[in-house]
């Protein structure tokens, strides 16, 4: 299992600003992901955070808007850049392990972002 801490838990931001969300895991993990959960909607994968290299983004998400860092196997950041009200959402950090064959994902508590 894994314990995941996300900061901030919530924030209110002004249009045009940027916010960086941190994700800290209590153990080394192979896979780290960033999801967006918009009100009343399902979870949408933004990108896979790759340790020591550029993140892999899903269709509809670009690095300029959602830059991601992953300097080591326990930490990642997601930045939401040049925010607009449409970016108001919950952003979830998730981790998984390879080699265990469980296929399970573990989630942080999420960061609730409101853009005015």
């Amino acid at each position, binding site marked *: 299992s894994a314990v995941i801490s996300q900061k901030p838990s919530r924030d209110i931001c002004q249009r045009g600003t940027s916010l960086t969300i941190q994700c800290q895991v209590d153990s080394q993990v192979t896979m780290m992901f960033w999801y967006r959960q918009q009100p009343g909607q*399902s979870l949408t994968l933004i990108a896979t955070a790759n340790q020591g290299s550029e993140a892999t983004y899903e269709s509809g998400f670009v690095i300029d808007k959602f830059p991601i860092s992953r300097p080591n196997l326990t930490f990642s950041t997601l930045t939401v850049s040049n925010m607009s009200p449409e970016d108001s959402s919950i952003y979830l950090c998730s981790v998984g392990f390879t080699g265990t064959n469980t*296929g*399970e994902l*573990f989630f942080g508590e999420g960061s609730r972002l409101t853009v005015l």
Partner: protein
Amino acid sequence: AQTVTQSQPEMSVQEAETVTLSCTYDTSESNYYLFWYKQPPSRQMILVIRQEAYKQQNATENRFSVNFQKAAKSFSLKISDSQLGDTAMYFCAFASPGNQFYFGTGTSLTVIP
């Protein structure tokens, strides 16, 4: 592409009663996993139960069990003896090895005292 459908946006159940949440999925994969995740009001999602597609036996975890119908691509969750702490959003999810997870839109379950 894989899709996961949860057709019940909201459900309620009396405490101690049994409730079944529905989930259907579409895939051409033969090897995959299915999951039910629970997201309480505190927002942290936790795994409730997991099913490997190659296993015919339905998974059970205490009061939680699934009805996995592979041919029908159906994966429902049954909660027995419902408790107040079961109040949460429940997400059905699909994943094939090495690929991303696909989540349904969720079912909001309220357990009524």
